[in-house]
């Protein structure tokens, strides 16, 4: 019960520890850019709702309901923004010799580790706003389904390319 591993030659405490890793933060530009994206979406949503209801007053008769719902949408996006501002500093990645790590989460802290020899393929994605600021998002896929895919947002495009090349070289070595 006390010890996790019995009957083995290697000493578990001598294994490389994830706890000791030096984490690289995401690019500082990522936070404002993701906020801009969130708010464009939020305002469009709110705008559509208001537009439909103000031109077509039969849908919802009471004015205060219309304004209340719009306020609710704005409040929701304020909350989302707060979470992403506070959560930003918890997002970080690290490349080790044999695996790639990514951590995230404000309330639920997650750390995922993905060995290079399990990588199936990887992708670099750039949204329209990201492209203007030369940022990119790296996605690394395994055979473990969507749950185990690793997504690192907010990388400089050039870094993302470099990391991708590195990962693909590492994963090709194993085949």
């Amino acid at each position, binding site marked *: 019960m006390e010890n*996790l591993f019995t009957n083995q030659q290697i000493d578990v405490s001598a294994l490389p520890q994830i706890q000791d890793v030096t984490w690289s933060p995401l690019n500082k530009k990522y936070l404002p850019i993701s906020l801009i994206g969130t708010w464009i979406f939020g305002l469009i949503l709110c705008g559509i709702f208001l537009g439909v209801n103000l031109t077509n007053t039969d849908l919802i008769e009471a004015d205060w309901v219309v304004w209340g719902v719009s306020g609710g949408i704005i409040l929701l996006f304020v909350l989302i923004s707060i979470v992403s501002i506070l959560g930003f500093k918890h997002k970080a990645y690290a490349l080790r010799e044999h695996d790639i790590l990514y951590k995230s989460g404000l309330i639920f802290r997650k750390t995922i580790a993905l060995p290079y020899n399990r990588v199936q393929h990887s992708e670099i994605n750039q949204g329209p706003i990201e492209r203007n600021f030369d940022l990119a998002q790296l996605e690394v896929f*395994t055979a473990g389904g969507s749950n185990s895919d690793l997504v690192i947002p907010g990388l400089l495009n050039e870094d993302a390319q470099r990391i991708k090349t590195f990962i693909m070289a590492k994963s090709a070595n194993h085949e």
Partner: protein
Amino acid sequence: MSNEQLLDLYEPKRQSPVAIMMFIISFIRKFFNIAIYVFIPLFVGKQAASIMTYLEIAALVIAVFILTMSILSYFKYYYFIDDQSFNIQKGVLSKKKVNLPFERIQNINFEQKIIHQIFGVVTLQIDTAGSAGNEIKVEALPKAEAEAIRDYILEQKRELSLQHTDTDEEVAGVEEAEVIERKPDELLLNLGILDLMKIGVSQNHIRTAFIIIGLGFSFAGNLEDIFKINFFDLFVENADFIGNTYIFPLVFFLIISFFITLVRTILKHFDLRFYKSHEGFKVTSGLFTRQEVALRREKVQIIQWTDNPIRRIFKIFTLDIKQAVSGIVRNNKQKAEVPGCYQHQVDEVLKSCFPDLADEDFSEHRIHSAFVIRRFIYFGLIPLALFLTLYFILEKINFLVIAIAFPVFALLLLLLFHKKYRVYVGTQFIKIKKGFFGTSRAVFPLYKIQAVEIEQSIYQRRKDLANVSIHTANGTLTIPYFPLEKALELKNYALYKVESENRPWM
């Protein structure tokens, strides 16, 4: 295989005409499914007559178009093999060629619906690896030919892998391996009607009853739209199951679901045969739709076997051999589920897939009791508050009954779950035992893991606990509320195994 037969497979061929028939049948079935939703409200509605004629014409045009296209595409659809790959040529307006190299083929399965059985044809399903994975399906071809194709592809794959090891390193056993005769399939289990009864009787009938009730509700929802009657209001107005009104329907649903499940089980697993084959295992089953699932030993990721209180009396398990599935397609057809297995068949499969398991020395671990308390908040206290509020608003006694019964039941289940949960960690394997009333056990080798994830909520951070998610090529296993120190140790060790051994995981 004679050369003549082989040449035959190289020749591009059309499917059996049964394919057209299959298409028409499925077309009619789908058409009626949609038609019911479209036409019933129209018949009841006011403007039915005027809209009907347009709709009828439109539907007819679309139907004729689809049928013509499908018949044309049947004549333009060819399949054949060449030295390296399985090929399909298709397309009416634009030609399309699908080329599937043998080394990318992971799985070849057959399926026979009742019409296939009558005409002696099968559906050939070829599954490929990788996240860009897709499945190729040849709807109907003669059984002998399908078997010839499968044997040929598997043979080619084996030769490819032998060549591979040959060039990689000098393996002494190569010549020997080539000499080894293909062993005939060994029948491990054949379910008779009595076994099927046992399995059917011991299914989870309560779950089926809930599904039926759920379907009933959604059907009621459809009727509501048509007849403009609110069934929820009816329910609330008449809800008084203290006074027996609801006991009768509940028992009725349970009895119905019992028979439905029994019949479904017998049809689905009829004459199930579970073979140990040269490559791994093979399961054939079904009365109307006869299905064959082939499993390759190397592709097996997790082996899971489950019982429940009734099955414990019969000493039978449902064995689920989970093999790697292609990234996007995760359908049930890939699932090799063998109900009605006895312990010795489970052991046989374990021994064959994971030979090292026998020498394994496991250490036993439990999850923290905080699991019960935290989950009770979500599944006990929140529903309690919800139903109490409903009770005070609507003043119906049955909401009070639910409000009290829910947390009691939730607490009971959580305590059972916590009491049973065990993680067994060995040097090569992990075994997880869990369940409420029944017990499910899952074993998987550490080196086949795809990724490891650790998650901590605010509460768990304070208590030094963590959820460990182990992602495999067939699903994720999560160990909740594991002591943080052990969780990190487990993660580091699992990563070490995956990265240092570098064994192929399929």
